[in-house]
């Protein structure tokens, strides 16, 4: 039988326990934070430890370099990207934080990277897709919900909302809970969207329906556009 029963996990030298009595601040930071400070003294701007979780603030343009080092270095081995998300605070002056949750499965470490994005400039940050393939949908979702552009992502388009969605980015604080449009307008647009009967240009190209397309869609497809109705 091909299922092997292993008592516990791969790294036997360290037995993790359920965290208890976590200090609010001034907990023990993840050793990787000090290593990052040493390796990238000008890219690491701040290290926070809250409830035992270490957050490292990274300079935006250096993010991919930092992540690649964390992934490749033999003493770090952050091989697992748990999550990508962002936070917009209620204080309108405070920058949006883009957040990466990384795990090192061999060393059983957890690290949070943060990049602060100024709201007055276009929200844009480096994609980590070249390092972690799992970033694909997480970055698309983050773009869909917050409008953060991930430079270098292979196919950055909306994922949960449909491509013609016009109301903006729902998880931004200036987006009202019920949406921007009236209920009747939302209903009209949702019925007209009929996303299950639409195919992207890329998909129509598979079906060799190119000749049947209207002129403007053919032009857009010829220009290399992948998405659209």
């Amino acid at each position: 039988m091909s299922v092997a029963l292993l008592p516990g996990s791969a790294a036997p030298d360290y037995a993790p326990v359920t965290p208890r009595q976590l200090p609010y601040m001034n907990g023990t930071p993840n050793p990787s934070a000090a290593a990052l400070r040493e390796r990238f003294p000008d890219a690491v701007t701040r290290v926070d430890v809250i409830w035992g979780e270490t957050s490292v603030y990274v300079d935006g343009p250096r993010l991919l370099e930092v992540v690649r080092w964390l992934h490749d270095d033999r003493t770090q081995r952050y091989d697992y990207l748990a999550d990508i998300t962002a936070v917009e605070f209620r204080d309108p002056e405070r920058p949006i934080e883009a957040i990466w949750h990384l795990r090192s499965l061999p060393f059983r470490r957890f690290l949070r990277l943060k990049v602060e994005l100024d709201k007055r400039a276009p929200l844009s940050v480096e994609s980590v897709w070249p390092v972690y393939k799992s970033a694909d949908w997480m970055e698309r979702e983050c773009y869909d919900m917050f409008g953060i552009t991930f430079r270098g992502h292979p196919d950055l388009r909306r994922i949960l909302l449909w491509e013609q969605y016009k109301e903006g980015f729902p998880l931004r604080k200036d987006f009202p809970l019920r949406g921007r449009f009236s209920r009747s307008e939302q209903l009209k647009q949702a019925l007209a969207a009929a996303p299950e009967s639409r195919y992207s240009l890329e998909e129509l190209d598979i079906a060799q329906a190119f000749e049947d397309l209207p002129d403007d869609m053919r032009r857009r497809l010829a220009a290399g556009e992948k998405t659209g109705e």
Partner: protein
Amino acid sequence: MPTTTRTVEIALGTSGLDAEGKPTRTPLTVGASGAVTPAAPAVESGPDLAGEHMLINIGPQHPATHGVLRLVLELDGEMVVRCIPHIGYLHCGFEKIGEYRQYNQIIPWTDREDYLNAIGNNCAFALGAERLFGIDITPRCTVLRVMAMELSRIASHLVWLGTTCIDIGAFTPFLWSFQERERVYDLLEQWVGARMTTSATRVGGMAADIPDGWTDKLRDFVRTFPKTIDEVDRMLTRNGIWVGRTVGLGAMSADDAVNYGLSGSLLRASGVAYDVRKDFPYLDYETYDFDVPVGVHGDVYDRYLVRVEELRQSTRILAQALERLPDGPVNVDDHRVVLPPKTKAMSDMESMIHHFKQVMEGARPPIGESYVAVESPRGEKGYYMVSDGTAKPVRWRIRPPSMINLSAIPKMTEGYLLSDLIAINASIDIVMGEIDR
């Protein structure tokens, strides 16, 4: 695709009985492609249709996609060349709604995102919120939550088993597994009053303690449930059709599985022994004696074996939890977070103030953030919460394991047949409520 072949003994119903009266087993070599050798290689006949690719749309209203998932496929004959998944048909904006709710008011939403693991999500959310509030829960509550999470894992894996069997063409295991799932839901109903949308936890404790005699019923379940697992095991594990339809499909290597962010049974079937309960323990899971099943090939068959073994291990954990269930209070003794008893709120001034403040304003955690991950039946389920000191979170993020598992489906299915895609999709164990949120 792995190039290894392995020998699986396949019991065929027609091959007769041996001296002990058991069906004789014919050893057959099963190739990586799922083709059973010895078998004549498929001979291509008919006109050459190479180059004529077809576009096929599956879903969103298709029973084999397990919810409102839409897959657009490029087919070369019957082979999948490209698979383009479309999700979002069930998007409800749970994370946005959470920013307008107090922490205890979010718990009903956690039922509804991954609805097969409702009580497990309740516990996971409460754990995240408790870290944000800086609370350590009572010993009795810890053990009760372990029971809740393992019962929920059993119920969820049983749904997976039943629906996957139906996809692949076996109907009987579906009936067996749903019968057992009904017993789990009966137990949950007696405990919290609801079967699927349990809303069982509160920040700092549980909504209700278990009723009298409940542990006896759970002990009965723990005693009899392994028989059903054995029955399913006997029916499927060496079944020629089952092996032929699952072996070698959708295989992910260990490196790929980690890089694509797979978690849960999929990751372990690929040979990576990552289980949040062992590696980043919560609820004292490090003190329970259980094993993490790990596969070798990462294909649909190994995922099946891993999940069936997880059912057995969950039963083991339940038995140990029953042994150690301590007496004592369920909720923490901190009335800034947990509501005081109603009788006290009516007679005691301080309790009334706490009651009023909690109901009208809500409990306020300090400024901070927490990411708590648990091992849900689908993988690493994480809740990330950010507080700015008010009673409502600034951000509530769900880390959806089945969405990230599903994002690897183009990688898993390309080069396989259309009928294999159904088996691979079933093996991912998706819940669209969690994927779309």
